[in-house]
């Protein structure tokens, strides 16, 4: 029983981490069609910035400051990348992917040049390094922190998307970008906003990942990114709650399989992915594109009928 509780809470913590990364990815991809390989690079730079801050200040204030610095680093980096690099390539999806791929190779190499290839310990304040007894299990405190932050972020994104004007533009843009542009709304500003938001979430995820793993290395971001991709494939792009659910599932499956199936949690996740991919109902025959278009047009006509 205590093992199960520990595994569940650890899996939830891991799921929270995945959610923070995947939510940004899903928003960016949904709105801009950019498969952002640089997302892991944002995370890596942020966690190193946070690590420097936490080392300099020290203790709990250091960690809080590090969280702010990490989030801002991710935000700034993403905004700069969007404004300087991605913006020039609107409409050319493949080139956009290629640029982010280039960044995902160059940025970790830069970090490695400055701080070396070896993993370094992330300073965890005493208040967060202990464990708490839950139903007889000793659960590390940082798991609760991760889950709490992820829940806050989920609520925040949900409020942003459902209650603000920009959220409305983002949701409409994910649905049909051409129509939003045709209505005279400047989607490019929403692009920058979403990219920066994704970067900020990646930065925050970097800091929490530092707490969770207790260490940081130049390639940490890239390996986390792969699981974030898996989360996005399983969960889809919208609504954001399905991304959260999928992140949770992946985190739990990984932890359970790691313990009960002899350390093959990562493989279990991939098997889960394959199962999900295969079980997706193939509605009728025809090319993937026609099927995709049918899937996209059905809800649109329904909503058009509703407003008429």
């Amino acid at each position, binding site marked *: 029983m205590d093992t199960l509780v520990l595994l569940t809470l650890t899996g939830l913590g891991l799921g929270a981490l995945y959610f923070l990364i995947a939510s940004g990815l899903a928003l960016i991809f949904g709105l801009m069609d950019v498969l952002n390989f640089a997302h892991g690079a944002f995370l890596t730079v942020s966690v190193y910035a946070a690590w420097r801050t936490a080392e300099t200040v020290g203790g709990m204030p250091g960690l809080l400051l590090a969280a702010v610095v990490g989030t801002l680093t991710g935000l700034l980096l993403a905004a700069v990348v969007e404004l300087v690099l991605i913006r020039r390539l609107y409409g050319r999806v493949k080139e956009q992917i290629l640029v982010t791929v280039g960044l995902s190779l160059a940025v970790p190499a830069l970090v490695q040049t400055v701080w070396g290839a070896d993993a370094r310990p992330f300073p965890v304040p005493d208040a967060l390094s202990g464990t708490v007894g839950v139903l007889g299990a000793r659960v590390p405190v940082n798991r609760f922190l991760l889950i709490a932050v992820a829940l806050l972020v989920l609520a925040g994104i949900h409020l942003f998307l459902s209650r603000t004007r920009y959220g409305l533009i983002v949701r409409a843009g994910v649905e049909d970008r051409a129509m939003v542009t045709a209505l005279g709304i400047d989607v490019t500003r929403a692009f920058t906003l979403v990219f920066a938001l994704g970067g900020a979430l990646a930065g925050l995820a970097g800091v929490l990942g530092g707490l969770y793993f207790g260490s940081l290395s130049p390639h940490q971001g890239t390996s986390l990114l792969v699981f974030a991709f898996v989360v996005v*494939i399983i969960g889809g792009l919208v609504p954001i709650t399905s991304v959260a659910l999928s992140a949770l599932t992946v985190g739990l499956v990984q932890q359970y399989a790691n313990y009960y199936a002899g350390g093959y949690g990562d493989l279990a996740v*991939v098997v889960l992915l394959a199962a999900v991919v295969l079980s997706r109902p193939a509605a009728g025959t025809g090319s993937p594109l026609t099927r995709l278009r049918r899937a996209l047009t059905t809800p649109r006509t329904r909503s058009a009928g509703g407003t008429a």
Partner: protein
Amino acid sequence: MTATRTPRATPAAPAPAVKDAPGAEDGLLRRLRPATVPVAVLLVLALLPYSALDIPVLLDGPVNSPGSLQLFALCLVFGALALGYDLMFGRTGLLSFGHALYIAGGSYGTQLAMTELGLGLLPAALLTLLLGALAAFVLGAVSLRTLALGSVGFAMVTLAFAQAGSIYVERNPGGLTGGEEGLPLYVDGVPDALVGVQNTVNVYWLALAYLVLVAGVVWTVTARPAGRVWQAIRDNEQRVAVLGRSPFAHKLGAFVLASSLAVLGGVLHLLVTAGATPHTSTPEFTLTLLVMVVLGGSGTRWGPVVGGVLFTYLDQRLGGWDLGVEPMLILGSLFVLAVYLAPGGITALGRRRNA
């Protein structure tokens, strides 16, 4: 091409005698012309081991020293791997991030078939090729089914499979894969002619043969009807479906063929580097292949080869020049610049200047 050819044939006076020859011979020449560049390149590459030329900064030793030959062999292998990858990326429009899985599969599979099953190099490589093609068929069929996210779904799923393979290799299950250190080449299973420093030249020949094989397969297949359908899928998949061809079957065919070539490439990588390294299984390895293809020029005859050779050379040599930075920083930045400044790759750059 046609624009430059016609005016040269029509004026009577200064054109060379061959050009004035009757139609039959002219036709023969024209038919042979596409073959001249590959044959010339092949000749130069084949004669390389007989040259003792010393190029100070670019190479550590003479051209025919074992160190230089090994570098050349590695460059050729990567040129061929990039060309095989381009079969999917540039020719069919499939963005796969899981190519490394098959390369690592070729390396580790052949090595393990030699150590665990006691096979010789050739049977081990053939067995690995067979199993690799089978795996590519199954995994390709699964990956190509992801439709909800369009072509990007394919990219993500192949990435996930490759990552699983990479983790499996690094976990070192049952001491099979050697974990982070990889496996040194099992020399007892390999013919003596391919083992040792003094036999580097033979490994070089083998790498050259692999490049010729891949170039032959890729260039031949893309000129055939199947290749035309791949190109059509790249340009407009829906139209292919409307015209009654199955995009799925053709994409799967391209995937299996490219993956089989990658498995063979893995065998070559094992022989050239004298070992199986876990680095070949990482998603980053696939990304570098993508970088090579795009740098050189995707979807072109020579682009991927040029990109692969150049990238590998720089990757190997930049570390030796002691610049104080990681090679990948320079190469990654170069790549980002190239996407903006040379959209068609290096080979297209030269062509545009000529025009």
